């Protein structure tokens, strides 16, 4: 661990939390409106990418913190620095907010002038040595009272964006938000990044563990986790809508009505790795192998399409018109 106190100190752990929800707007936003919505700073542009899906990424904003780091074993370590947060909008429909920071292996025992933290955005320095395992486990478990709270920061940004006057605060269908917490263990540069774990827990909580080479920025890991969270949200939400529509039992216009929003708003959003850093694109492969995210999605979409096709044959046109 050389030069941990230097300006370009190496980080050993990156962590973050992504919150994903449906944009509270009856209409999906186009690129221009998306840029307006996510303009968190007047002097930094919103990054807009229209291919293969419309993706808008806000500038990063910083939150200063000076508090205990979340630790699973109760060890008390004070951390000082900044947490970066950003918001993303996909196809003008799915809104996400990520808060993340990186940690070096050790830091000075005193608080330094604030300007010195600000020139290294997204870095939180521990006082003394970082208990790496306990901190990673603590982040995945979630912050305790008075501990650095990534969920609060990402939720705060999400709430700020949702309050934007551009939005009519109406949703085309009901859905729940999801949270995805992630940690990335830093590995030597040149090694291949890896997905160590993806856990679907209760209450809309997902956790991800990555191995991330030093030469890949933490923002790339954040981008990957946003992509994972987005597709996990799609699977979760569509599955839920299908369950509620009692596809097997119900028939007639009610089932069609329940499936209509899926077709109109969600089916075209499935586009894994569309905006993932090329160094991390292959991490999707593990999830495609097992449990097979895309296989499940294809299966769900097929069921919906088959159902609607059957309906179209059985019922005259007016049923489809009722949404």
């Amino acid at each position, binding site marked *: 661990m050389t030069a941990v106190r230097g*300006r370009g100190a190496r980080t050993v752990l990156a962590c973050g939390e992504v919150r994903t929800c449906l944009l509270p707007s009856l209409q999906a936003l186009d690129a221009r409106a998306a840029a307006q919505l996510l303009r*968190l*700073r*007047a*002097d*930094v*542009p919103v*990054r*807009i*990418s*229209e*291919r293969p899906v419309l*993706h808008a*990424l806000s500038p990063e*904003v*910083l*939150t*200063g*913190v*000076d*508090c*205990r780091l979340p630790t699973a074993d109760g060890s008390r370590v*004070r951390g*000082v620095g*900044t*947490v970066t*947060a950003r918001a993303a909008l996909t196809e003008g429909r799915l809104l996400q907010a990520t*808060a993340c920071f990186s940690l070096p292996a050790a830091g000075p025992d005193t*608080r330094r*002038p*604030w*300007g*010195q933290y*600000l*020139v290294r*955005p997204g870095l939180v320095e521990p006082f003394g040595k970082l208990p790496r395992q306990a901190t990673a486990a603590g982040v995945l478990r979630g*912050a305790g009272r*008075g*501990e*650095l*709270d*990534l969920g*609060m*920061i990402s939720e*705060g940004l999400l709430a700020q964006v949702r309050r934007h006057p551009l939005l009519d605060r109406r949703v085309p269908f009901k859905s729940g938000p999801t949270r995805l917490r992630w940690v990335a263990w830093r590995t030597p540069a040149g090694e291949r990044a890896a997905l160590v774990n993806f856990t679907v827990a209760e209450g809309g909580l997902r956790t991800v563990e990555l191995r991330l080479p030093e030469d890949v920025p933490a923002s790339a890991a954040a981008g990957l986790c946003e992509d994972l969270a987005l597709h996990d949200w799609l699977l979760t939400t569509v599955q839920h809508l299908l369950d509620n529509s009692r596809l097997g039992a119900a028939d007639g216009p009610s089932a069609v009505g329940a499936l209509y929003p899926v077709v109109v708003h969600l089916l075209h959003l499935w586009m894994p790795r569309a*905006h993932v*850093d*090329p160094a991390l694109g292959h991490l999707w492969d593990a999830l495609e192998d097992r449990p097979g995210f895309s296989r499940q999605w294809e299966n769900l979409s097929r069921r919906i399409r088959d159902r609607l096709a059957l309906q179209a044959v059985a019922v005259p046109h007016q049923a489809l018109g009722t949404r």
Partner: protein
Amino acid sequence: MTGAVFQETTAELRTQSVPLAHLSLELGHLYMEDFEAGPARLREHFAEVRIWADAVRASAARRSKRPRISTCFLVDDYFTRFSTPAELVPMVLAEAERAGLVIDYLARESACAVADRIELAESVTHRLVESPPPGSHGSRPPVSRTGWLANGERTPAGPRSALGEVKGWQPPQETAARNHSIFMDVELWSERDGRRLWSCPFLAAVWQLARLGLLRHLGEPVLVPAQWTGTDFPQDWDRLPPLVRLTDTAAAFSAYRTCTLLPNRFLAVEDAVRLILDQTDVDAGALRQVAERSAAEGMPVPAAVAQRAGYVFYEEPGGFSEAGET
């Protein structure tokens, strides 16, 4: 995404670089009361400044054999409008020349609020990241909404105990205090008739960021100097570009470091400027460019932005200080 065949320019962030001198030396800052005191006051000012300017040049020569130094002068046209460029600028230049000083760049103070239709001051407010007092775990709002910025925790407002017990006075606390606090709370703006009036320290902080080459708008440089070749200056301040180059100097307006020469009554203002700079998250691309280029020239800048600004405070020359304090 990097190294890809397919690219979308709207998906990328780029920060254009700006030319940089070694040192930006400010020779003065003219307010209405200085102007009203007549040319003699300017003459005294420049005679005093000349001495310190020479000292600053000698200091810069210790870092580099051929230091690139640009000089600048700021005229207040924001808080009070007085005189005209046609009348004032030639007088300033003549008095500077009499003292053996050359002013390379002249700026209007209102340029720190809005320049070329870009709201510079407003943009900088979005970049304020308050220094978190111990215990801040992410619940504080990221940007000051009150228009005040402090270097610590304020005295709690009023008795607020739910049980009705009256709490005694509690002192404010400087976050970076060494044993004892020096607490400071700076007003960044006020509202008047629905219009925001920026405070002098806040505009001065924007001015420092411009001189340090750290301001951008959507990745493009701002406050780019316009060359002034004509001899006749306009009758109206609005017709003078926000920043003009008056000489054919090769030294750029922005620089790795700044040095500002001021009468000592400005000490509090500049202390407030440092407080603001210390809590400003500047453009990361611009920050990197300055760090890399200064290091390549063997004169790396201090990591913290506020540390790059140097000052000389001097006693206002004979008999004029009283007039300035009104």
